[in-house]
């Protein structure tokens, strides 16, 4: 029997004796020491200093530095900036934040154009499994949700943004339910809630383990019912400004023809999502194909400041075996209901519902110190003992509550009700992003940013279930604020003149860039 098989057998043998065992929680000092030593955010050689722009002198990972310091696909002498479209609100991105923004802006009477790199709905939103945190139970409160999120964010969260996030949770839940989102219910009609890591009370609304799919399906359908003007397969490649610090539109690229499409807009909302497909520090990712940080690069060049651009979330439980599933997420909710993490010896090594940064660090520690399990493809991981869920709650629990997980693994002949699976942290979320105020406006006037592309709400670590809430709360806020602003201002000149000082700064700082950003897609094509 291989070491792999032997280790798996040890997990099965230990299951019965482990099932009721308590695992001590980390003290604040222990957690800090663990993060300091093992969290990828603390790995100095992975980081570099940003040499130009609003965040000059600050640090982020090499992959993001390359993006921020990248060459524009256009020059300020670009030929023709005659607009093909003139709208009140241009929304870039067709995920949960962009769709929420579009619905609100449209409802406010604005003329809206949505442009998206792939199809409407193609986003990280659709992949969210665990749920959406909203303080609905009588024992809970928005204040308590705030405290949990702040502690989870290493006390770094922007408190004004966070207060708005948790306070509008119940209103947003109602908005979604009124549109037909079918959250799981209890017998009495109340919303069924579940615990998540770092939360002091159960607070996760969910639709089995298809929460993001359900949200996105409904939001997408609502956008289509509103007949909002939509340009798919048309990513934005550069923002336009008046040259004096106001965003005035954007240049899109039609992916089929490579033709440029100029849009003049009174306000622009960037809901461009995250960065997983940059494969920061070589990590696999749970993210969507289009998650290449486009909004970061373009906002930055146009003059918008970033915040917390140095911190990322590595979700503790990304699949590492079989190889075809590498990086795919195994929802945290499965640990909420009792699945345990075990090293090669079949021993637990962390309380499974510590915050994601701590659990990921502990998994990395086990693997670095020789207590990981090696996959046939040479990856390292630890076991996630999912069969324990059925032992604890009765046979069929996994099938009933995690149909998506059961199905994902069954394609590769792995029965998660019988066998543990191997996991390792996967690049999951950009904790920071473009700095915004409580109306979602960036430091570049009339450029609003919502969802994962923005930063500050989650501090240095986002709690499970706060992202689905974020995209809807701030998507809505951005949509409302941008529509209102659009009603107060006129169209302004379309220029790329902001590229000139950016180029000059690069030259002065000696930055030579081989990257053209936004990169739009990861490069997976075999060049032979």
């Amino acid at each position, binding site marked *: 029997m291989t070491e792999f098989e032997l280790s798996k057998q040890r997990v099965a043998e230990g299951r019965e004796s482990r099932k009721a065992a308590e695992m001590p929680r980390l003290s604040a000092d222990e957690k800090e020491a663990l993060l300091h030593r093992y969290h990828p955010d603390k790995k100095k050689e992975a980081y570099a200093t940003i040499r130009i722009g609003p965040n000059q002198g600050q640090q982020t990972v090499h992959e993001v530095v390359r993006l921020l310091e990248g060459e524009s696909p256009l020059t300020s002498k670009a030929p023709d900036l005659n607009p093909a479209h003139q709208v009140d609100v241009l929304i870039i991105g067709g995920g949960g934040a962009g769709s929420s923004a579009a619905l609100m802006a449209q409802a406010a009477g604005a003329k809206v154009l949505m442009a998206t790199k792939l*199809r409407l*709905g193609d986003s990280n939103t659709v992949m969210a499994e665990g749920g959406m945190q909203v303080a609905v139970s009588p024992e809970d409160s928005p*204040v*308590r949700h705030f405290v949990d999120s702040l*502690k989870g964010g290493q006390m770094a969260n922007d408190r004004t943004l966070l207060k708005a996030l948790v306070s509008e949770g119940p209103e947003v839940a109602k908005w979604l339910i009124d549109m037909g989102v079918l959250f799981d*219910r209890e017998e*009495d009609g109340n919303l069924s809630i579940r615990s998540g890591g770092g939360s002091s009370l159960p607070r996760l609304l969910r639709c089995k383990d298809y929460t993001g799919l359900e949200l996105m399906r409904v939001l997408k359908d609502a956008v289509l019912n509103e007949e909002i003007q939509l340009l798919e397969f048309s990513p934005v490649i550069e923002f336009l400004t008046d040259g004096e610090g106001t965003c005035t539109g954007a240049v899109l690229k039609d992916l089929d023809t490579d033709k440029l499409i100029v849009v003049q807009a009174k306000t622009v909302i960037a809901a461009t999502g995250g960065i997983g497909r940059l494969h920061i520090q070589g990590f696999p990712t749970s993210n969507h194909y289009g998650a290449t940080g486009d909004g970061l690069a373009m906002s930055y060049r146009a003059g918008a400041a970033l915040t917390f651009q140095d911190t990322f979330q590595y979700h503790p439980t990304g699949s590492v075996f079989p190889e075809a599933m590498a990086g795919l997420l195994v929802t945290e909710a499965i640990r909420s209901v009792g699945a345990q993490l075990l090293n090669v010896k079949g021993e637990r090594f962390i309380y499974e519902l510590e915050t994601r940064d701590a659990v990921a660090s502990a998994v990395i520690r086990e693997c670095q110190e020789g207590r990981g399990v090696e996959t046939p493809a040479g990856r390292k991981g630890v076991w996630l003992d999912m069969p324990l869920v059925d032992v604890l709650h009765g046979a069929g629990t996994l099938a009933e509550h995690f149909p998506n997980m059961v199905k994902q693994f069954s394609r590769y002949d792995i029965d998660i009700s019988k066998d543990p699976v191997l996991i390792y942290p996967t690049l999951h979320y950009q904790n920071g992003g473009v700095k915004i105020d409580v109306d979602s406006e960036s430091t570049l006037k009339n450029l609003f940013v919502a969802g994962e592309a923005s930063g500050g709400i989650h501090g240095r670590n986002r709690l499970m279930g706060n992202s689905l809430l974020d995209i809807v709360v701030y998507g809505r806020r951005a949509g409302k604020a941008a529509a209102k602003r659009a009603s107060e201002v006129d169209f302004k000149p379309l220029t790329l003149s902001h590229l000139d000082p950016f180029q000059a700064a690069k030259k002065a700082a000696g930055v030579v860039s081989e990257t053209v950003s936004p990169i739009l897609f990861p490069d997976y094509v075999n060049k032979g």
Partner: protein
Amino acid sequence: MTAASAEEKKTAPTITVEIMGKTHQVPEGLTMLQAMWHAGHELTRGAGCLGGICGACPSKYTTKEETKIKTALACQTQVEDGMSFSLVASYYPNRKVVADFTEIKDPKQEIFRLYPETALCRNCDACTQACPKGIDVRSGVWKAAFGDFKEGAALFLSCVMCSLCVPVCIADIAPNQVGLYMRRAQGIFFDQECGHLSARLEEIDRGKFDSEWKRLLSLPDEAILAEPRV
């Protein structure tokens, strides 16, 4: 797939597959989409979440053993020797009917106006066989026709709107759109009220948490960290 794993795959045993009409040698163990990248395809249409949940990569394929044309999500299906496959267009928007839920009075009747084909199912079961998510699509359509929206909605829970069920329907039904309409209608018209949520909204409206906010936001970090149950 990271660069490192791509390196490893170069040394894996190769198999022969036909991708959109052209034969390629690719390493074992790849998904259809990974095989396309290996064969040099640049993907815009056809790639999405890469996790089987967004419906961007519906595909049709045959295997060495079987000439029957089967359906799959290309990001979720491993290639095998002798397989022939092709991405198919996602039929998503063209069968979608605009529905204004604020105007609908009787959603169980309205379905026959919006999607009149719903009543015409001839039980061939092709939709169910085409579904890569294993949904009992045919039963779902019948439940829509009979007004059993609650059970019908539940059947379509995992629908990724890939549309593979649409072109196979001999009655021209768009089952995925019928399923989504049924789910939304179930939520909008028939689900119970959430008492706790309504109570919480009322509490927020009357400012129940205002003093608590004021107190908390004035505290230094250490005090918040020490904050017991609020």
